């Protein structure tokens, strides 16, 4: 590594950390550690290492260098006036996490955790993944730092996100399809915990979101808060004031916490998390954990979750693999109870409408996850009117979703995506919305080769 380090950050300049969690990882009544005793020593080790490195100028300097030279930070802030016409005329700005290396915000967190893995002397990382973005990011960081990598992914998701499976394998990771339970993200997390408890001496678990046992919710937040720290400065610089509303999609909630954290002390700024409403919360087929769930314990922490009367986790449903998760990070549960953030559901249809709209008005293909935040901006913009400024976290790009979107909009035969020009525009529910998607699929294949 020959690139010069950015000036070592002065730890006194670090942004103020929220007053939560407490020393044992509790966000009010949420969070904590609900894990087998066998994992406590590893969690303690990780907590101790992280707390030391969080204020270590050498670690922070290396992390800052990677963010700048490898990820490409700071990510841009993009005004989207043509899209904003559909948001009640409010001004809409996108924080472009889709332009990060690997295509989403997930890289912010994995670089931090992979650096930490090396510092605590472990040689192997494991990760869970839903849409595949966190798996790709972890495989990327592992390749960069010479760590071996195993990614657990629900078998159902390996089918929905075959492109990301190929990416991870190209990057040298082992991808293990998980065939237990609902064969989605929650089961991948269970399997990753089983691996960790067995191989904890050599292995660090690079958790992908702000859920799980302490220290993950706080640590992942701290690695992701760069999104909001940058965006707050960028918005101030551009318009001389803070945004009125900050919006982000919420599955586990890491991109939302990432952009919310800098604004939590700004009382005048509304924070809105958009949950995956699937077919609609009233149908029971959704992943809107805070809207449609209640408090309980899942995957090592107390938070909201979707559960039945016996305390069994209910399988979630969303067109977006990355939001298809029946739990949510404990800090979101706490922000909800405090009334500091609002959580609303966005259905599959609403998200796909916003997806198509951003494609054709701005030339940006968003991840379907992020399209939930865009749909939220369309709704909230109409409520707050044309003088408002909305900041939306565009957490990822949509290349991985091209096949799902093509299928949704009825474009051709999608067992083998046809890149030809013969799209029948009559079949498209939103005219001209996604006609460039197949070309993007072709590009992606080129990128992989």
């Amino acid at each position, binding site marked *: 590594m020959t690139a010069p380090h950015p000036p070592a950050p002065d730890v006194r300049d670090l942004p103020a950390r929220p007053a939560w969690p407490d020393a044992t990882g509790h966000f009010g009544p949420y969070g904590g550690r*609900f894990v*087998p*005793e066998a994992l*406590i020593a590893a969690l303690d080790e990780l907590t101790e290492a992280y707390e030391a490195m969080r204020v270590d100028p050498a670690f922070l300097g290396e992390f800052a260098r990677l963010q700048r030279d490898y990820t490409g930070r700071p990510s841009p802030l993009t005004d989207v006036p043509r899209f904003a016409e559909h948001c009640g005329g409010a001004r809409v700005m996108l924080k472009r996490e889709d332009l990060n290396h690997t295509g989403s915000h997930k890289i912010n967190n994995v670089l931090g955790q992979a650096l930490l893995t090396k510092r605590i002397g472990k040689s192997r990382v494991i990760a869970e993944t839903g849409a595949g973005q966190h798996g790709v990011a972890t495989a990327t960081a592992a390749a960069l730092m010479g760590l071996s990598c195993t990614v657990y992914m629900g078998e159902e998701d390996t089918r929905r996100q075959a492109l990301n499976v190929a990416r991870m394998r190209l990057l040298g990771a082992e991808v293990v399809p998980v065939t237990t339970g609902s064969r989605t993200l929650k*089961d991948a997390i*269970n399997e990753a915990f089983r691996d960790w408890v*067995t191989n904890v001496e050599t292995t660090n678990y690079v958790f992908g979101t702000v859920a799980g046992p302490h220290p993950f919710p706080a640590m992942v937040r701290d690695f992701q808060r760069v999104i909001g720290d940058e965006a707050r400065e960028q918005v101030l610089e551009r318009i001389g004031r803070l945004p009125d509303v900050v919006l982000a999609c919420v599955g586990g909630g890491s991109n939302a916490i990432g952009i919310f954290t800098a604004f939590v002390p700004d009382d005048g700024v509304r924070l809105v998390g958009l949950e995956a409403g699937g077919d609609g919360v009233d149908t029971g087929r959704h992943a809107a954990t805070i809207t449609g769930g209640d408090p309980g*314990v899942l*995957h090592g922490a107390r938070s909201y979750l979707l559960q039945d009367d016996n305390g069994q*986790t209910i399988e979630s449903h969303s067109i977006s693999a990355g939001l298809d998760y029946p739990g949510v990070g404990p800090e979101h549960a706490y922000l909800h109870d405090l009334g500091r953030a609002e959580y609303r559901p966005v259905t599959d249809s609403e998200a796909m409408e916003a997806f198509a709209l951003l494609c054709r008005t701005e030339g940006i293909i968003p991840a379907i996850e992020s399209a939930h935040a865009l749909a939220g901006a369309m709704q909230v913009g109409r409520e707050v009117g044309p003088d408002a400024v909305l900041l939306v976290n565009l957490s990822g790009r949509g290349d991985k979703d091209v096949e799902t979107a093509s299928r949704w909009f009825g474009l051709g035969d999608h067992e083998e995506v046809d890149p030809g020009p013969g799209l029948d525009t009559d079949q498209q529910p939103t005219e001209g919305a996604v006609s460039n998607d197949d070309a993007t699929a072709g590009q992606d294949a080129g990128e992989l080769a």
Partner: protein
Amino acid sequence: MSLLQDRISAARAEGRAALIAYLPVGYPDVDASIEAMVAAVEGGADIVEIGVPYSDPGMDGPTIQEAVDVAVRAGVGMTHVLRGVEAVAAAGAVPVVMSYWNPIERYGVDRFADDLAAAGGAGAITPDLIPDEAGPWLAATDRTGLDRVFLVAPSSTDARLASTTAACRGFVYAASTMGVTGTRASVGDAAQRLVERTRAVTDRPVCVGLGVSDGDQAAEVAGFADGVIVGSAYVRALLDGGGPAAVRALSVDLAGGVRRVGSGT
């Protein structure tokens, strides 16, 4: 007083370790699972862990997952578990519930404690609840006199061994190998080291789980522990279609093992 500790002490008075069998309620169905528990007792189990089915059993290997998944899909819940508790008590063994925390929290911690005590249960083993997070459960078990069993692991520090065992009542569950449940060819000496470290900080009985599958391994563990916990091997007997007869035969083999102290390989 502690139902679990009394039973383990009685076994010790006979110069042997206690045999603790785990079976989940609801596999292959509720009635058959309870018949299997009774068969385990008839074959010689002193204590039966009545497993509460859970959708996300993070500490269990494939064998127990497969059985529990069937029970979860069938909607098996705490009322069925309490039937199992009554049946085991009636068969003459000590029933203890084994549950991940969320099903207990969902049922209601105090309601669970009251109903479990009323059904004749000794208490509960909570594999994903550490004493640090157990405030309401400590209070409910103190109020009702139920036993509460927490786990210790080879990775536990001496300080945690001391604090965790101090919170236990009934026995201490030594999760002998780092890993999930499942049968293993060898139990290994990690178990013995963990038991020795645990005994150094507590007078409570120490029982060993994770990995024991036959009478010879049971004999080996009985050489250094107060109780031998067997789970996956019982579940395997049911998964293989052996029914109560296979469960009873396994208990007979294991019960022989815990009486052959020191003769294990």
